[in-house]
């Protein structure tokens, strides 16, 4: 009897304390334009999914805030052997959000899963051929041949560490209510509308996250995100319309922030389409673009001109300059290539993004100056992606962002053919670049590997399978009382350090 009473009292007390807690629970509300598709890290490549996953799961190592090196994640420390064939991790004392400890067993399971056939990122992890678990807090990964990006790839969202037991028990349903060791836990997911996250009580960074809850609201219309911020319905609005930035900065109670992430915007040129198969034509088009005017008129100054389709990141060559705006030279090159009167081409454009629409219209006017008549075809982003993938296009306005701090991911995507995407579906091929890519992946980090990247990017610049445009900044607007919010160079954001000082 007595014990029962005690139990009741305990229950009552805990209910009361919970109520007290929720009364002062601090919620951070973020409006973002992307609608996450799935929380399964090996099945996704869209930004909404990736950013959300990185709030729920941890990786062994992760890019630091400057985007120049990796910092400890679930791994407390690590050693990479001189030949690069052995990577040894010591895990920290961390728990998943269901209270079970993170073990080397979970790490092996997660990395093996990321390397599996069902994974969209398999080739990033397949070079890791063998695991060794000396004790539950230590794991050794063995490679059979050198693969320099291996270590870096472990910082990618696809290598998120998942609880083996829970995932095996639940199967695919696990990702509807996932369990991770990251700062937040998914409470409620209203598809297309919002994701409600609560703080993970077992999170390994003591005292973090500072807020109790974080709500990610999916608001696809950029102006609507700003209106919600002004109305106080959200605390942070990601990607406000760039043209409204000046007015937002002037508004009391609102601050704006901006970082230049690892991103490059460009137009894919399908080299299988007759005029675009000619290198001189592709270079001519690059000379015909006034990038300064684009950045001023479309990005409202929030960007820098691009010299290639590679984001400016590790091993970038500061001496590589963008194609200058020179319509006379463009016309001369077109004439040399046998197109003195120009030609016609169709450009696919994502209808959902205002900046893309505006850039397309500006490009159309600029290319018309040298006789190239561009027909714009607005498409929904998924259709645009599928169409370029199938190769049935001429030009397509697109961009790429790097999820890691090593340039290997993006060079393999935009410049190497076939590798991952036939040089991002341009079907352009350069044997020297392909050879450098194979070599780079076997070369340890250092000046030698850097020289290989610089040569590859120079070849890409000269071969011009893209119209190189700009590196746009990522911008956000927030209420004054939000402290510590920032977007990382890898384009995602972390919320564990954000505080609300009302």
């Amino acid at each position, binding site marked *: 009897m007595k014990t029962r009473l005690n139990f009741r009292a305990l229950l009552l007390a805990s209910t009361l304390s919970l109520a007290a807690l929720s009364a002062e629970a601090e919620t951070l509300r973020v409006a973002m334009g992307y609608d996450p598709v799935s929380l399964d890290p090996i099945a996704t490549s869209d930004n909404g999914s990736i950013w959300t996953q990185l709030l729920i799961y941890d990786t062994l190592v992760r890019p630091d805030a400057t985007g120049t090196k990796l910092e400890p994640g679930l791994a407390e420390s690590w050693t990479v052997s001189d030949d690069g064939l052995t990577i040894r991790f010591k895990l920290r004392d961390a728990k998943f959000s269901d209270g079970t400890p993170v073990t080397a067993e979970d790490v092996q399971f997660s990395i093996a899963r990321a390397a599996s056939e069902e994974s969209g990122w398999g080739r990033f992890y397949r070079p890791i051929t063998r695991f060794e678990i000396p004790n539950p807090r230590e794991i050794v990964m063995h490679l059979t041949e050198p693969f320099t990006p291996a270590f870096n790839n472990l910082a990618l969202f696809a290598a998120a560490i998942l609880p083996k037991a829970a995932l095996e028990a639940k199967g695919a349903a696990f990702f509807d209510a996932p369990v991770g060791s990251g700062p937040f836990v998914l409470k409620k997911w209203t598809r297309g509308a919002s994701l409600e996250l609560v703080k993970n009580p077992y999170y390994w960074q003591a005292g973090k996250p500072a807020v109790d809850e974080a709500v990610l609201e999916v608001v696809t219309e950029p102006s609507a995100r700003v209106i919600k911020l002004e109305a106080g319905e959200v605390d942070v609005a990601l990607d406000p319309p760039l043209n409204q930035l000046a007015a937002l900065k002037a508004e009391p109670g609102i601050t704006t922030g901006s970082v230049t992430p690892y991103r490059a915007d460009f137009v894919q040129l399908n080299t299988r389409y007759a005029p675009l198969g000619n290198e001189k034509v592709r270079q001519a088009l690059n000379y015909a673009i006034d990038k300064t005017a684009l950045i001023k*008129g479309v990005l409202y100054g929030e960007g820098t001109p691009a010299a290639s389709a590679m984001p400016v990141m590790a091993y970038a060559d500061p001496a590589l300059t963008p194609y200058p705006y020179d319509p006379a030279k463009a016309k001369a090159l077109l004439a040399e290539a046998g197109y003195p009167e120009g030609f016609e081409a169709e450009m696919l454009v994502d209808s959902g993004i205002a900046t893309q*629409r505006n850039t397309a219209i500006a490009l159309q006017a600029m290319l018309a100056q040298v006789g190239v008549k561009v027909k714009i075809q607005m498409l929904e982003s998924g259709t645009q992606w599928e169409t370029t993938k199938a190769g049935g296009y001429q030009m397509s306005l697109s961009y790429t962002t790097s999820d890691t701090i090593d340039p290997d991911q993006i060079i393999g995507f935009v410049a190497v053919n076939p590798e991952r995407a036939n040089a991002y579906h341009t079907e352009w091929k350069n044997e020297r670049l392909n050879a450098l890519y194979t070599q780079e992946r076997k070369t340890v980090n250092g000046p030698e590997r850097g020289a290989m990247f610089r040569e590859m990017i120079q070849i890409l610049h000269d071969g011009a399978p893209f119209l190189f445009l700009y590196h746009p900044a990522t911008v956000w607007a927030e209420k004054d009382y939000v402290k510590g919010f920032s977007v990382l160079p890898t384009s995602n954001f972390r919320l564990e350090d954000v505080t609300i000082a009302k």
Partner: protein
Amino acid sequence: MRILIHLLRSPAGAAGLAMLALTLAATALTPWFSPWDPYALDFGAAMQAPSASHWFGTDNFGRDIFTRVLAGAVFDLRIAVVCVFVPMLAGTMVGLVAGFFGGWVDAALMRLTDVVWAFPFYVLVLAIVGVLGASEANLYIAFFLVNWIGYARIVRGETILIARLEYIEATRVLRFGKLRVLLRHVLPNAVTPALVYAMSDVVLTVQAVAALSFFGLGVQPPAPEWGILIVESIDYMREAPWMTVFPGFAIVWIGIAFSLVGEGLSVALKPKG
């Protein structure tokens, strides 16, 4: 000609015709009184408020909105008129045949209209444009496939009524050819309500074309079609409301003009007696 005189006598019809004439004249004469190119970019002149040199202001690319709205009228009017009158012709023929011959011909044609009618208009047009791709030509195909239904039904109803009237009975007694009766005696009377309906249909079609272009399913940029002008203005609505307001006003203006003409027509065509 008599219809036109009647139309001009009704105040609504006269006003509507005057508005249409003004629009067409302004559109045709744009190059003479506007120094601006509707397509040329000038980032230096971006988002200027309405002024003496830019009557409707400029857009985010520095293009003159007044010139663009007028240039856009060509697109919207052309599409709306073609999308109404071609299906009207087809629908009228179907309605005439169905109403005049009756029996299984009528049953078959009307079941066909039922099938098309069963789908909500926009869903059907979206599906057609979705399958064929977004372009002006495909917009025509989509509207042609859907828009004839209304006319077929209206004309069929009128035809059934007219076929029972005494003067048609008389043509039977006189043993006139069926085709002659149909085209010379039934058609002129059966088509009048369809003509009135067509006026309001033009209004709805202008809106539908603008709406489809708004969703990226119609005409493609940089064509200054009004729906495109509005969708391009969304993110600038707060700083440069003139980018949205004037194209919106143009749609309302054309809507009122055609509605007034329709109103006038219904008065002018009303049987006297």
